């Protein structure tokens, strides 16, 4: 390009704001966190000296104070992932399919309606569901009792499995719009000619979905799954405000556990170690998901040449296969121009 040595360094100026902020707000806290986790570090008085891996050992030794906190909240968080991820993906895909089949003008309207709750903050959502599902005289209980669907009130926020049910419902209601929007847009891009051809062949709706729609929204589905799992890992506001981690600490999430360790027990060192462990677990799980979808993709590629392009698109990207689309969009644009 048109670069002299001088302009090369001027170009570097453009990256400096980013590098600075990355250094200050990301790299320093990361390294500092690792350093803190190797010390007996109290929130109140600060550093009490280097203790090596003791914090990690404490967390991983069964039946110690911090092990109980960490394991219990890890178990709860994994439970929440198992309970929340399937509805968050399947319901949002269902909604997207429904909307995709609507007349064009209504499409926009309903898309907005189902996306609406995404604009409400987690705290407002929690307040809302806390009172809707009140045990003693709450709206839902009264409704179910009056219609004869239950005979005695349900302690929604204080009994399992209802407590998980309320948290999952609140989460699904709150965030489903985003996943749906991604699916709607992906469905929009499926080539209508394919459906027409299938119609001529007399294909059933299910077959059309299975052989045309599903392969075409594959990438977006993987993206949705990975991001949804990460989001569910970060459960905090809902369980803090709706159930306060109860009943019997069964909805207390990892972040709540870390928070309690840092602020309740005053142990910034142990808390930082827990946070690093949580980060590691998340990275491993994301990596596994990625590897599995990569492997499946490869099998499919071997079975059909037409899949080849999709394979290359899906694999040359980072943690979230975000880069697969711009290319296609641009291709289209160029085609329009010429």
């Amino acid at each position: 390009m048109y670069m002299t040595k001088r302009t090369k360094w001027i170009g570097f100026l453009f990256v400096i704001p980013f590098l600075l902020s990355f250094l200050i707000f990301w790299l320093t806290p990361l390294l500092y966190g690792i350093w803190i986790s190797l010390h007996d570090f109290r929130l109140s008085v600060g550093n009490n000296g280097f203790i090596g891996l003791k914090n990690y050992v404490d967390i991983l030794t069964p039946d110690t104070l911090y092990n109980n906190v960490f394991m219990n909240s890890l178990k709860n968080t994994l439970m929440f992932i198992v309970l929340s991820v399937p509805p968050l993906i399947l319901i949002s895909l269902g909604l997207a399919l429904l909307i995709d089949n609507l007349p064009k003008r209504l499409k926009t309207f309903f898309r907005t309606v189902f996306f609406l709750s995404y604009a409400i903050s987690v705290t407002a959502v929690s307040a809302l569901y806390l009172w809707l599902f009140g045990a003693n005289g709450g709206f839902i209980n009264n409704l179910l009792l009056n219609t004869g669907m239950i005979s005695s009130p349900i302690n929604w926020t204080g009994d399992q499995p209802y407590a998980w049910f309320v948290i999952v419902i609140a989460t699904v209601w709150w965030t489903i719009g985003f996943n749906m929007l991604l699916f709607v847009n992906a469905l929009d891009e499926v080539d209508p000619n394919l459906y027409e051809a299938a119609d001529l062949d007399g294909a059933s709706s299910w077959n059309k979905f299975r052989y045309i729609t599903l392969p075409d929204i594959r990438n977006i589905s993987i993206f949705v799954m990975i991001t949804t799992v990460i989001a569910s890992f970060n459960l905090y506001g809902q369980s803090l405000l709706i159930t306060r981690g109860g009943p019997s600490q069964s909805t207390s999430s990892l972040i709540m556990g870390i928070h309690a360790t840092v602020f309740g027990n005053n142990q910034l060192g142990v808390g930082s170690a827990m946070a690093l462990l949580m980060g590691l677990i998340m990275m491993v799980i994301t990596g596994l998901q990625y590897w599995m979808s990569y492997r499946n993709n490869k099998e499919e590629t071997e079975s059909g040449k037409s899949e080849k392009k999709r394979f290359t698109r899906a694999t040359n990207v980072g943690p979230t296969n975000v880069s697969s689309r711009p290319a296609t969009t641009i291709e289209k644009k160029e085609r329009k121009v010429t």
Partner: protein
Amino acid sequence: MKKKRMKSVLLVTFTSILAVLFIFPLIWMVFTSFKTLSESLSSAGLFPNEWTLEHYQTIFSASADSNMVQWTINTAVVTLMGTVIVIFVDVLAAYALARLNIPGKKIILAIVIIALTVPGIVTLFPAFYLFKSVNLLDTYYPLILPYSAGTLGVFLIYNFLRSFPQELEEAAYLDGATQWQVLTKVIFPSIKPVVTTLGVVTFLAIYNDFLWPSLVTNSDEMKTLTLGVATLVQGSNFVNPAAMMASTVVATVPALLIFLWANKYFVKGVTNSGIK
């Protein structure tokens, strides 16, 4: 044809029923906010038997224990500034990485991608402690600045630019334009879709953030709406569901309006940007 029409009517009806169920919690929230204290505590009906505005009056009265107005201002400042900074920082960096042959480019790119895989929880508490150490808790700084360290934006724009044709830029250079001019006059207009998406995603992320602001703010005057509502849930309003709902209505309306306005940009942005 008739069959198709039937199917379409059925679909619309079904979707409408779902939509009503979906927004029902919001409707309930609004109606409850107009109930009296004792009715909101006990009554099972949706509509208030006796309408009252007292909870709204309390919220906006001078002696209110909640700083609803201040929280709204804070939220506006924090989300707008945060979003502008993120866009500014990320566009500059992505441009330089994609187009200028700068030193250390490969390393920076590697950093960007590695950082994307590291979950935010890892840096959260140390970052809080760092802000505490330099006495910057309870100011706007920690509420705004740290978001610009995220690498997703750089990554998105970089990818977008990389696959974007360079002819226009080269023509501009031949005409004697500087890098800055090329960036503002040629690049920026063409990456607008991805920037819009980044803007809306960042805006929503900052607006919705609860844990980080709860760590770095201490006084009531510095809270954001999201944080403020949490205080109300845990605090004194806990005894009064009607007042609670009035507060959530007030906290939600501005966001909903912005959201409805930004909705079309967002939908367009997601379609164009490559968050897929």
